C-alpha cells in the first residue's frame, strides 16, 4: 500500500521517473488488478434554496490499484462531487464507498480525517496552497497535522529533508522559501503535488489539476502524475473535462447526468 512512499525513501526512483517521463511509453494494461476504491450505487444531491438538486444518481465504479483513472464529464455532471465523496470530504446520501476492503462512507469523522491525512493525497485545480506559509512549509503541513508539536519537533529534520527532496524531485529546489504568491501556476501545482505526496498516500485524488494551467505546464504536471502511477504504482483518480488529458490515463470514466456512461 505504501510502496510509493517506501520507494521514495530510497530517494532515487521518483527523480529518475520525472526525468524520464517525457520519453515514456504506455505500459500494457494488467488484468484482474485488485480494487483500490469501489463505489456502489452512490446517490448525492444538494439543497439549494429549498430545492433539491440531484448530482449523483446511482454511480457504480471500480478503481484499480496502481492505475491512473480519469473521470470526465460536462460541468455539473457530478465528477467533482464524486471525487469529494471518494476523498471522504463529503458523505453520500445513499450507497457505499469501499477502500481496501473497508467501507469508508459511514466512518466517524475522526477516522475520515485520518484517512484524508494518511491514505489520500489531494490536488486541486486552484492549487489551494496556504498563502501565509512558504512552499516548504506548505509541503510539510500534512506532517504537521499528523504529528503533535513535540513529535514534529523531534522528527523535524527528517520531515524537512523529505519535503526538500520531494520539492527537488519536482524541480522546485529554488522555490523552497518562497510564498505561493511568488510562484507561477505550474510551480504552485507541483508544490501541491509534493504536499499531497508528503504523507506517502496510497491513492492520489486530483480535481482538474491542469484546468488552470497552460498546455505546456499542464503537460508537465500530467507527466509527473503518470510517472508516479507508472513507477511508484500510485493509484490516481483524476477529474478533468479535457479529453486530451483524459486520454493519457489508463482508464477513462465518463459521467453523464450523475451516472457512469461508459468506463
Amino acid at each position, binding site marked *: 500500500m505504501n510502496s510509493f512512499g517506501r520507494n521514495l525513501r530510497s530517494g532515487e526512483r521518483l527523480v529518475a521517473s520525472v526525468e524520464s517521463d517525457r520519453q515514456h511509453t504506455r505500459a500494457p494494461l494488467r488484468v484482474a488488478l485488485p480494487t483500490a476504491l469501489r463505489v456502489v450505487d452512490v446517490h448525492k444531491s444538494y439543497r439549494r434554496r429549498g430545492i433539491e438538486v440531484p448530482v449523483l444518481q446511482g454511480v457504480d465504479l471500480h478503481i484499480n490499484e496502481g492505475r491512473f483513472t480519469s473521470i470526465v464529464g460536462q460541468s455539473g455532471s457530478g465528477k467533482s462531487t464524486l471525487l*469529494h465523496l471518494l*476523498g471522504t*470530504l*463529503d458523505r453520500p446520501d445513499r450507497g457505499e464507498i469501499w477502500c481496501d476492503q473497508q467501507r469508508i462512507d459511514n466512518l466517524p*469523522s*475522526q477516522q475520515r*480525517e*485520518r*484517512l*484524508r*491525512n*494518511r491514505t489520500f493525497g*489531494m490536488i*486541486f485545480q486552484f492549487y*489551494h*496552497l*496556504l*498563502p*501565509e*506559509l512558504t512552499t516548504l*512549509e506548505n509541503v510539510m*503541513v*500534512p506532517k*504537521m*497535522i*499528523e*504529528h*503533535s*508539536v513535540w513529535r*514534529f*519537533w523531534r522528527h523535524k529534520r527528517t520531515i524537512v529533508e523529505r519535503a526538500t527532496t520531494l520539492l527537488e524531485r519536482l524541480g522546485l529546489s529554488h522555490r523552497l522559501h518562497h510564498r505561493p504568491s511568488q510562484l507561477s501556476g505550474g510551480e504552485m501545482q507541483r508544490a501541491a503535488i509534493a*504536499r499531497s505526496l508528503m*504523507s506517502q498516500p496510497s491513492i492520489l485524488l486530483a480535481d482538474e489539476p491542469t484546468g488552470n494551467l497552460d498546455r505546456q505546464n499542464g503537460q508537465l504536471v500530467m507527466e509527473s502524475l503518470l510517472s508516479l502511477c507508472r513507477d511508484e504504482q500510485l493509484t490516481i483518480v483524476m477529474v478533468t473535462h479535457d479529453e486530451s488529458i483524459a486520454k493519457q490515463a489508463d482508464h477513462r470514466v465518463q459521467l453523464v447526468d450523475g451516472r457512469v456512461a461508459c468506463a
Partner: protein
Amino acid sequence: MYTLLLSWRYLRTRFIALASIISVTLGVATLIVVNSVMAGFVHEMRHRLHDILSDIEFDAGLGELSWPEHHQACIQEILGADMEASTMIVRVPALMTFDFRGRTMTQQILLIGIDEATYGRVCEIQPYLSNRHKQQLLNFFLEVDGYADKIGECGWGYRREKELLIREHSAWGISAQHQQREQEFAEISARLAGAPVEPVAAAARQMTADPAAMQLPDRVPNLDELAAGQEALSGRPFGDDDLQPFDSRSQYRPQPTADELFDPMRDQHTGIILGMAIANRKVIDQETNEVRDVFLLRPGDDVRVTLPTAGENPAPVAENCTVVDFYQSNMHEYDSTFAFMSLRRLQQLRGMIDPVTGECSVSAIQIRMKPGAHLDRARDKLIAELQPEYWGFVIQTWQDLQRPLLSAVNMELTILNILLFLIIAVAGFGILATFFMIVVEKTKDIGILKSLGATSRGVMSIFLGYGLALGAVGTGVGIAIGLVFVARINQIADGIGWLTGRQVFDPTIYYFSKIPTVVDLPMVVLVGLGAVGIAVAASVLPALRAARMHPVEALRYE
C-alpha cells in the same frame, strides 16, 4: 504544530486585527494607571490614618474613663505578648482664638492631651512634626531652631523680635491715645468755658487720623529704656545673654507664679502643637502659578484656647498657649482640626485629677499591637473580656474607626474597575467582529486544512491561538505603557498641565506634593489575565464557526 504556525503567521500578516487590539491595550494601560494611582492614594491614606489612630482604641465613649492604669493593666493581661505598648489620651473639642494683623480669629479644634513619654510608642506622631528636634524627642517646649524651612521665621528668635515690636508699637499707641484724650479734654473744657476751640486740637485730630503725618511722641521709649524697664521689673540686668538661644529641653520652665511676672521674651505659655492646616493657608500665586504657604500662626506665637471642664457642670476655661510646632500628616481632616497638648496639663485644666486621691481620668486608651498581630481578633478578645457595651465604652480597631471612608474608597475602586473592564469588554466585541471577517477571509484555507486531514478541533485552535496571541500582544504592550505611565506620572501630569494650561494635580487640594502610586503585582497579573481572557473569549465564536465549516463548501467558497 500547524495551529501554532498559522496563528503566528496570521498575527504577523493581519494588521487589521492588531488595530482591533489597540482598545485592549488602552484598556489595560488605563486600568493599571488608575489602579496604581488609587492604590497609591489608598496606601498613603491608610498609612496616615493608621499612624494617628493606633491599632486599637479603648474609647470611654461620651464620658470619662476612671482608673485608667487599672484598665491598662487589664488590657495588658488580656492581650499578653501580642501588645507592644499602650498610652492614655484626653480628647476634647475646643476653641482657639488668636490675633492676626490686629484681627481676632477663632478656630474650632480637637484638643488632644498626649503623654510625651508613651504616645510616640503607640502612634506615629513624631515623623509628622516640623521640628527636627521634636522628631527625635517629643515635648511641648518652644525650640530655638530646627523648624522646617518653609515656615520661615519662627521659634524663640521670632518670639522675641515680635515681642520687641509689640512693645514699641504699644508705646506709640499709648502716647498717641493719651495726646488725643488731652486734646479732647481741652476742647470740652474750652466749650464749657465758652472760649473758641484752639487750632492745636484740630491739628492733633488730624495727626491721629493720619499715621503718616503723625510724629513720634516724645514719650516713646527706645530699646535701651525698655531694657532698663525690664531690669527694674525682673530685678536683674537685661543683657545680650537673654537673646542668646537656650535649650528649652534641658530644663522645664514652670508657669510663672503670681509673684513672678510672665515675660514673653523669656517664657512660654503651655506648649501646643497645631495641625498644619489650622495655621497655614495654601494659595496659588497668580503670577508664577506656584503654590505659596501663608502662615496665620508660627511656632512662637501665642494663642488662647477655651475648653469645657469635665464633670457634671461643664464650664469654659481658657488657657494661654504658645504654639511650639506644627503637625502635618497630610490628611486634611486631621491637619485642620488636631491640636496636641501635654496630657497632664489638659487633665489639670479640665479638672480630671481627683484633688483628694490624685487619680486621673482619661478619654481613651490607645493600644499598639506587635507587628503581624491580628487586630480584629485582639479587639474581639478585649470586647469579650471587658464587656465595654455595659459601661458605654467602645473598643475599635483603626479600620473600624475609619470604616465609612475605607469602604467608600474600596467601593469607588471596585466600580472604577468594573467600568474600565467594560472598556476591554467593548474591545472584545471589536475582536469578535474582526475575527468573523478573518474567518470568512480564510474560509478556503480552512477547507484546504480539512482536506489535508485537519480536525475541527485543530482548526478551532488556530483561531483561539490567534486570539490568545493578539490578546497577549495587546495586553503586554498595555502593561508596558501602563507601567511607564505610572513611573513617569508626575512628569506627565506636569506636561498635560503645561499643554492645557490647567493644573492636573492640585497639591492645595490633596496635600500631596506628588501623585502617589503603588504598583500592585497581583493587580497587574489579574488585569493581564482578564484582558487575555476577554480576547480569547471573543475569538471562541468565530473559531467555532470555522471548526464547523463543511470542507467541500469551504473549498468552493469564492
